[in-house]
């Protein structure tokens, strides 16, 4: 085939593919509806960035003006809301088991008197580690409150002795830590999670659609017809079939990009170029992995099962929630097999930290490297397309 003939054939196959979409609405669901549901869901779920007013219970055995003041101050913290005041720890624990509160702040008996007279009353606070995000937010507030409670006593003693406030603060807290969360100074969870969750959904849907579009040809015994329309060339047939999907998924990916960095103004320190390129590479590398999956397991249901499991696993193994460095070395190596992992590393370098492209070129290379996969499995896939009999 000459080049022009090939181009013509590719167009024929692409037209045939678009025709097939019209016949089964499931393509539209997977390519447009599911990604839309996810982008709306995740962006609206985390629109505040950080959960505020997490409920806690206060066990106040003191009941003095001092302890009430403490509770009021704690309630005034942005992330904390005191919803239960009680004098029994048992009740507070039950509220925790009921899921009504995520933390308990415990003020012992005679707290006010003891504090003023230097008898060192002990404050305790409990967080429910089953809810990790809520627990760590509340931990921060309750710890700050406890430190402040100690400081206020020190402040009063110091003032009584005639020191200036500066002198006292230097005494109370000689070393202050000034934290700079690079790229995400608000500790915004939406920035933190959605930058990887949404491309993850996209990767999953690309796996599924790629496997489905090829596998259903085998299942319905139309694969020979498909190959013939591509001039019996595997490359031409695949290109023709996948190109329309590439276009749709790239548009969806760029719309994601617009939603994240345009509409929501998430940090984009690298400018648009590197991220758009990364997303495009994510789309085509995921397609390549999809072709490999159906080539390896040329039964539609097995191919799809493989795609589902692999696509779901990506969310965990990519390491944006639990870092890859904290995993078993085997898993660290395995994580390289997921396009999303490399996309995530590019995102961290580029959009989040605005690093030089030099530091991420290996990840771009990895993503491009996935494109070899279809060539490795091409022969196997063609065999399946020509001779495989679908067994229900």
């Amino acid at each position, binding site marked *: 085939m000459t080049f022009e003939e090939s181009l013509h054939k590719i167009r024929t196959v692409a037209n045939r593919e678009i025709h097939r979409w019209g016949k089964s609405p499931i393509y539209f669901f997977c390519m447009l509806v599911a990604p839309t549901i*996810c982008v709306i*869901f*995740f962006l*609206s*779920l985390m*629109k505040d960035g950080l*959960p*505020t007013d*997490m*409920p806690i219970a206060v066990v106040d055995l003191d009941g003095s003006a001092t302890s009430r003041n403490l509770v009021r101050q704690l309630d005034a913290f942005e992330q904390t809301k005191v919803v239960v005041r009680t004098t029994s720890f048992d009740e507070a624990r039950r509220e*925790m*088991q*009921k*899921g009504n509160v995520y933390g308990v702040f415990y003020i012992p008996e005679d707290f006010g008197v003891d504090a003023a007279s230097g008898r*060192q*009353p*002990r*404050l*305790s*606070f*409990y*967080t*429910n*580690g089953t*809810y*990790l*995000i809520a627990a*760590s937010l509340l931990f921060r507030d*309750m*710890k700050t409150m*406890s430190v402040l409670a*100690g400081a206020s*006593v020190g402040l009063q003693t110091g003032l009584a002795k005639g020191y200036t406030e500066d002198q006292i603060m*230097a005494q109370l*807290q*000689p*070393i*202050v*830590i000034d934290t*700079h*969360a*690079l790229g*995400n100074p608000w500790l915004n969870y939406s920035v*933190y999670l959605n930058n990887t969750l949404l491309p993850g*959904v996209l990767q999953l849907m690309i796996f*599924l*659609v790629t496997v*489905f579009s090829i596998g259903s040809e085998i*299942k319905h015994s139309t694969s020979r017809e498909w190959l013939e329309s591509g001039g019996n060339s595997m490359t031409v047939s695949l290109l023709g079939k996948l190109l329309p999907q590439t276009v749709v998924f790239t548009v969806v990916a760029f719309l994601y990009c617009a939603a994240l960095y345009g509409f929501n103004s998430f940090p984009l320190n690298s400018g648009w170029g590197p991220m758009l390129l990364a997303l495009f590479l994510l789309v085509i590398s995921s397609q390549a992995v999809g072709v490999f999956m159906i080539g390896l397991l040329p039964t539609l*249901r097995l191919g799809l099962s493989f795609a589902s*499991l692999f696509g779901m696993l990506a*969310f*965990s193994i990519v390491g944006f*929630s*639990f*870092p890859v460095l*904290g995993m*078993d070395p085997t898993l660290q190596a395995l994580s390289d097999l997921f396009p999303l992992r490399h996309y995530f590393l590019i995102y961290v370098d580029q959009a*989040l930290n605005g690093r*030089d492209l030099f530091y991420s070129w290996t990840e771009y290379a990895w993503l491009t490297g996935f494109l070899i996969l279809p060539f490795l499995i091409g022969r196997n896939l063609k065999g399946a397309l020509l001779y495989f009999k679908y067994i229900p």
Partner: protein
Amino acid sequence: MKRENRLQYIIKEGFLDTFYIWKDELKNVFKDSGVVIFFFLVPFIYPILYAFIYNNEVVREAKMVVVDQSDSFLSREFTRRVNATADVEVVAVCSDMAEAKKMLDEKKAYGILYFPSEFSKDLHKGKQTTLSLYCDMSSLLFYKAFLLASMEVSLDMGKELRAHNSPASSGKMEEIMVEPIPYESVAIFNSQNGFASFLVPAILILVLQQTLVLGIGMLGGTAREKNRFHTLVPVCRHFNGTLRIVFGKSLTYLLLYVVVCIWVLAIVPKLFGLPQVGESWTIMFFILPYLFACIFFAMTLSGFMRSREAPMLVFVFTSVVLIFISGVSWPKEAIPPFWKVIGYVFPSTPGIQGFIRINTSGATLNEVAHEYRTLWVQAGIYFITACMIYRFQIMRSRKLIIKQYRYMKMQRALRKGK
């Protein structure tokens, strides 16, 4: 009265048919490798994989680089103590920020601790001094490790410095001055704030629902592909009543999933040492309505599946949404009302909430009454919808039979007419 109309006969036949359908469905399950994958392989492998991924629970030795402009005894002591914590490892001490930033760029470290040149001088003069901590935000767990470790060290050293700077008459007096109100923090139920203990129980419950939806959906899709007239119900004497079909089939799934549940909810947590303080009876009582709700929910959905692969394309991605809507990672108080309502459609939402509180926090059925009730209500509603779906399908296949019968009769009449 005809024999067929007697109640006794109907009940007896109903029972026999139920068991016939039960056996038939059992055969369908084991004949279909796709269904076997979802009913057995996925629930078997997935929990192991996830437990393996999150098995280390917490991040240890997060890599940090120190920029020490002060280069004094105090700054070195501070660095040494940060390095000594379990969470942080100081990989290098650089002389300027540019060098440290380069290490971050090269991913040799994920955080920078910066000592200003007047660090030691300020402290000796009795002035407050500020350290700067810079964190790479690719993982919040790194950030947390750096922040907690340096906070802890700064508070400890602060106390010592104070005691040193203004000595008191006795050790006790010193202690009171340094720390007038001591405090302690306790993480309960998941005492090391581990990641596996937090997320894996929720995944276990979700896996049950999702595999049921996928497996049953696949069975439904297969039936639609295979049966004459492409209906969910085969044309057969035994499939002649809604209740016997719904009971017969759900019995199959229920019995299979009792086995699956034992593996997923009893053995896996033991294998990986996940916290399990709940009473096993409570867990069983709670899981029962969950299974019912999931099964009937899946049977309802299976009515809409036209092909055997459709469930995978449609339902797999929902797992990501469902884990967030359940309120375990994103607190339920922060979920917008609209999504909260949507969450109640799925058995996994109350299922996950209730299960982790029983399993990890030791709640009894009293404490999860709301979730327990919700599950029964869901089971009831989805039972009715499942019946409606099958009723509709029976009627449809009957109508199609009658249509075909008339059509054939007409053709025969035509042929005779010739």
